[in-house]
C-alpha cells in the first residue's frame, strides 16, 4: 500500500513533521517495494490560508491510501475523508519509525479531527 508521511525531507531517517497542512514536505512510501519518493507541499506552505485543505487535495491526488502525521484539523480531515484517505496521527521520530509504528498497529486511525481549526 501507498502511504504519505509528513516529514522534514524525503529520507527514511528524516524527522517526521507534526504539522499536516504546513508540513515541510510529503514522503510517499510504497510499503511493498519499500520505495520512497517526495511530493513537495510548496503550494500549501505558501498559501495565506487554507493550507490544510490544499495539502489534503494533494494527498488525495497522490494515490496514497493513508497519511501519517502529527495532528489533523477539521477541514483537512473532512477533505481527506472525502478523498477516501485514512488519517493516522501521533507520528514520532523518523519516517522509518512512522511506517514501522503503523505496521505494528501502534498508531491511531482518526474518526474525527484531533485539533481545532486555526480559523474556527
Amino acid at each position, binding site marked *: 500500500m501507498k502511504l504519505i508521511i509528513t516529514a522534514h525531507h524525503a529520507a527514511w531517517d528524516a524527522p517526521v513533521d507534526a504539522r499536516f497542512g504546513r508540513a515541510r514536505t510529503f514522503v510517499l512510501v510504497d510499503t511493498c517495494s519499500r520505495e520512497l519518493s517526495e511530493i513537495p507541499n510548496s503550494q*500549501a506552505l505558501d*498559501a*495565506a*490560508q*487554507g*493550507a*490544510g*485543505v*490544499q495539502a*489534503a*487535495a494533494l494527498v*488525495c*491526488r497522490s494515490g496514497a491510501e493513508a497519511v501519517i502525521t502529527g495532528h489533523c484539523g477539521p*477541514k483537512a480531515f*473532512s*477533505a481527506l475523508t*472525502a*478523498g*477516501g484517505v485514512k488519517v493516522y496521527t501521533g507520528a514520532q521520530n523518523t519516517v522509518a519509525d512512522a511506517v514501522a509504528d503503523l505496521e505494528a498497529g501502534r498508531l491511531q486511525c482518526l474518526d474525527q479531527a484531533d485539533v481545532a481549526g486555526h*480559523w*474556527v
Partner: protein
Amino acid sequence: MIVAVASGKGGTGKTTVALSLALAVEGPVHLLDCDVEEPNCHLFLGGEVVSREEVALPIPRLRAHACTACGLCGQICQFGGIIVLPTGAHVFPTLCHACGACVHLCPEGALEETPRRIGELVETRHDHITMVGGRLDVGQTLSPPLVRAVRARADGARLQIVDAPPGTSCPVVAAVRGADVVILVTEPTPFGLNDLELAVEMVGRLGIPHGVIINRAGAGDDRVQRFCDRRGIPVVLEIPQDRRIAEAYARGLPVVTAFPEMRPAFRDLFARLTALTGLAPSPEH
C-alpha cells in the same frame, strides 16, 4: 466629505475622535462604525434603531450530480475555498472570499451561488447623527465585505465620518479607501510611533491626504512630533493626557460631551481637514 479615522495601534482614541467630530458638527452627519469585529460607537450614542439589515456573501454550492471533477474551480481558487478530489469538488465556505470565479468558470454549471450570512448592519439615529454600524457574526473571519457594506450604506451622504478598525490590513484598507482625508490617531510612545509609521505608509499607498492627532499628549516624549515634522505630516490636533478624559470615556461619555470646552477644537478640525483635501469649504461645517 468623507473623513476616515484610523490608527496603526489599537486603543489610541479612534472612537473618541470619531464620536467627538460627529457630535461637534452642526449639520447632518453619518457616523460609520467600520470596526465590525468590535463595534463600540453605539455604546456611547445610544439612540433609536431605525433598521437592521443582514449582510451575506454569495458562496458556491455544489450540485454533486453535475460535477465531473474537471478541476477548474480548484485551480482558480486562491484561498483553498474549493478543492477538487477524484470524487468531485468540495467547498469550504469559511475559506471562500466570494469572488465568484469558480461559479463563472464551471463548464457544467455545477456550482450555484447561495447567500451565507456574515453579519448585519444596524442603523441608529441620534439627533443630527445617523450611525451605521457593522457587526460581524461570531465565528466569521472575513470582515472586509461587511466593512464595504457599511460604507456603501452612506453612499452619497455629504458628510461621513468613518471609525476604522485598528491595524493596516485588509479591513482597514476597506474602511479608508475612497475617503477624502484620513486622520491617524496616535499616542506619543514608541509603540504609537511604530504603528503610526506603518499607517502612514498605508495611506500613502492609497494616495489619501492625511493628518495626525496626538492623543494623550504629554504622556510620552516628542518622537511622534519629530516624525511628523520630518515627514511634513500636519499634526491637526493634540488631546492632552488627562485622567478625567479617560474616566469620562469609561462611563460612556465622549470627550466633547464630558468637556464641552473641547468642542471648538473639534469643530475647527473640519476646517483643517478640508484644507488638507483641497475641497471647497462647506458653509455648514
